[in-house]
């Protein structure tokens, strides 16, 4: 379809010209996300209601135009890139909290709300929404739904899917339906479970129904400092084997520590090889005993020092280092690739060693920040994106790391998704039969391949 006709049709639907964007600058800006991939949409539209989203989808389906739903574009694997042009639906106007139902411990929000904003709205009730992706101050609930986002707390509380109970979705043909609901165990196939983490390739969520719960009574935050990465990794295994379930077990390596200290000054020692950020939460009773036991285990693994946050300010500072890690590392080089291969927890030490070796072999610096409690790596491979050769090299490094993870019995994505970036690695963990089943699911939801096409699944031969 002619681009001009597309634009005027969308202006018909939206009624307000300000919310249909198509200038060169807009097309450039919406061709980005946090990955290394770029695309270019034909037009960007910012709907205000589900009914408008439905009209947009009807139009796109009639005209066979690709549609990509987008939140803040924090996606790390190219999931929000309009690789085949078409329409980008940006959800920034649909950012309302529809309902906070304390009595039933549920909330309904629109997809465009920032995760942290939503949590701040819950705080006055003494309630929390548990998932806490590091990007939560800018990432949206819709994006979290699409990616099944994780975060430091998921060692104890699970990932986004464990807290999503339903959604209002617009289907490929513009039809609107609810999946799931406020009550648990609705009979039938678990469509909510299927849609969470489907990277916006099956349907477009316009309302999200989530579980909220009373905030924990107490927290205890510890920072343990190590002279070797291996000691830190072994401590993680020891804590888990000791039967303690912290809410968080996060690890940062030396390069990350340096970057963090240069930017957020979290008080991490510059000469340490690794730090572990450990947080317990729950009832206050017994927490001190567990904290003491954790400190003992850290010391047994030659921790140089273990600091405990004495108040909320100190806790915020320790966390600032972790939450600000990606941003801080970004200051070290013009660009970085972050992948999120995930391995069984006990394979972490050996996998880390191999990752470091890959970086050395390609002569690229790698900063490691990871969810150690979940075996979820985040190697940040630093490179100069103005240098074509480096860009090619970094893709090879990423691919090798994923191969190492797959060989260790792990997987190629713990929480960032497949998107565009990892399609070629799907074969590392899926057989042709597995992929053919995934494709059948895609066909049910999107027979004409217009919803975020070209993602997750390898192109058919």
């Amino acid at each position: 379809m002619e681009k001009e006709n597309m634009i005027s049709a969308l202006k018909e639907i939206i009624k307000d010209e300000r919310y249909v964007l198509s200038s060169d600058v807009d097309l450039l800006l919406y061709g980005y996300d946090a990955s290394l991939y770029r695309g270019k949409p034909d037009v960007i539209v910012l709907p205000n209601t589900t009914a408008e989203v439905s009209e947009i989808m009807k139009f796109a389906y009639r005209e066979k135009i690709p549609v990509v739903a987008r939140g803040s574009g924090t996606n790390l694997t190219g999931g929000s890139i309009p690789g085949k042009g078409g329409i980008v639906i940006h959800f920034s106007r649909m950012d309302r909290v529809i309902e906070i139902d304390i009595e039933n411990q549920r909330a309904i929000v629109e997809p465009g709300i920032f995760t942290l904003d939503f949590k701040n709205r819950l705080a006055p009730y003494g309630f929390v929404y548990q998932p806490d992706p590091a990007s939560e101050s800018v990432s949206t609930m819709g994006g979290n739904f699409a990616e099944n986002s994780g975060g430091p707390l998921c060692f104890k509380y699970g990932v986004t899917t464990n807290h999503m109970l339903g959604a209002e979705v617009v289907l490929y043909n513009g039809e609107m339906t609810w999946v799931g609901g406020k009550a648990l165990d609705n009979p039938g196939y678990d469509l909510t479970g299927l849609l969470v983490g489907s990277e916006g390739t099956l349907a477009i969520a316009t309302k999200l129904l989530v579980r909220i719960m009373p905030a924990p009574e107490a927290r205890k935050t510890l920072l343990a400092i190590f002279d070797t990465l291996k000691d830190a990794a072994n401590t993680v295994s020891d804590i888990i084997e000791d039967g303690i379930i912290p809410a968080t077990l996060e690890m940062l390596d030396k390069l990350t520590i340096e970057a963090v200290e240069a930017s957020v000054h979290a008080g991490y020692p510059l000469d340490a090889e690794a730090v572990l950020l450990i947080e317990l939460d729950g009832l206050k009773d017994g927490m001190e005993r567990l904290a003491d036991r954790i400190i003992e285990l850290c010391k047994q693994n030659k921790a140089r020092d273990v600091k405990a946050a004495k108040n909320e300010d100190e806790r915020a500072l320790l966390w600032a280092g972790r939450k600000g890690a990606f941003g801080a590392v970004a200051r070290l080089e013009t660009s970085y690739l972050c992948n999120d291969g995930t391995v069984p927890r006990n394979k972490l030490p050996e996998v880390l060693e191999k990752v470091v070796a890959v970086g050395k072999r390609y002569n690229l610096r790698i900063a490691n920040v990871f969810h150690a409690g979940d075996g979820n790596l985040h190697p940040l491979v630093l490179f100069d994106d103005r240098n074509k050769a480096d860009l090619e090299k970094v893709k090879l490094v990423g691919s090798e790391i994923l191969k190492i993870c797959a060989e260790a019995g792990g997987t190629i994505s713990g929480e960032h998704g497949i998107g565009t970036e990892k399609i070629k690695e799907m074969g590392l963990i899926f057989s042709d039969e597995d992929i053919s089943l995934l494709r059948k699911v895609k066909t049910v939801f999107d027979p004409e391949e217009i919803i975020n096409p070209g993602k997750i699944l390898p192109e058919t031969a």
Partner: protein
Amino acid sequence: MMFSKAEEIVGRDYIINDPGRLKDFTVDGKLPRVVVYPANVEEISQVIKLANKEDWTVMPWGAGTKRGMGGIPRKFDMVISLSRLNRILELELGNLHFTGQAGMTLHEAQETLAGKGRGYFIRLNPPFSKSATLGGIVAANSSGPSRFLYGSTRDMILGIGFVAPNGDIIRAGGRTAKNVSGYDIGKLIIGSLGTLGIISDVTFKFLPLPEKSATLAVILSSLEDTHDFTSGMLNSNLFPASIEILNTTAMHELSMDIPDNGKYVVAICTEGVKESVDRQLKDVEEMGKGSNAVGVRSYLGEDHVNFWESLSDFPKIVAERYPYGIACKSNFLISKPAEMVKLWEDRAIKNGLSCALISRAGNGVLYSYILLKDSITEHLDALVNHLEDMTEEAVKRDGNLVIEFAPIALKERLSVWGRLRDDFKIMQGLKKQIDPAGILNPGRFIGGI
């Protein structure tokens, strides 16, 4: 024909068609034509491919504890028993994951884990505690009282191996705590009652056994007090493992020793770090007093274990004692359990029915057992009225009503999966795309899928 071709795959010793032995596989009064016992996932795949070619329908079978679930089979040719797939495939203490084949019982898995190192457990306590198999539990999305703290089957599974309706051997998920590679196909399989695939193995997360577990049964004399107490629990920052409301009939079936003015019991299980368990026991008792409790019973050690086992196994007790017993599960908003108990009791009395009621109060689920001993015929109309009524009430509270087992005469007159919702069309689409010939368990799932 069917027999000899299937025999070629599994071998003579692992196939039966003798009517006397087929009787053990009766589902809603129907017998299969043949039962096969494949040795491994490859044999399952071959049998399924054969079934496709010959247009036979296939029903997967673990221990048969869920045979009452679902609609009456539309066509019933072959049972694939998973009983020979009963081995542990992986057990990794360092990663807290356990992979067992589908035919293994959860009980055996738990015994094995309890004996390792400091002692571990899979955080599920579904009904049929001794006999239910891993595959059956997953296929039926079965869970028990402890789901309030730990979540249900869907929160506990890292990976599933299964055979698709075309015979493809599929692996969904893996063994890592987090995994967003490709669509979460495992979620589709959980609770699909064998209509999308035959589960061959399941990978669960597990955890160290808690330092301490204990139970308080808070006895109350009215539903108002019961509501007051349970909603207080839910909105406190205590995290018990289980919050179960029992009515008088349920207490009676469990032979609980309760004073005359005790009409309801709220059983609270708390487990975890010792200090936090002690604190919760104290707080629960206080809260009970605040809600006018007329008594409190404390169960520790064996008593505690036995109490929860018999509560989990309540459907089994009903099935054994009441040949015409009916088990229903309603789901609804979590603030409404006492209200639902009241509706059930009032209408049951009106309809002349005796009901044992157990509500998983923290999860907004009510299990209702209609206790019929001698026959069902004279109650049929009342039952249909009652259940339609109760479905309506659950739907009003954003839920539904599922009949988990019932005599055929009743199943013939009701939709056992409750009211269909808007998203049923998508479910139908999935079934059609994944099992186009409709060979897996036809007729038993929602909307006749």
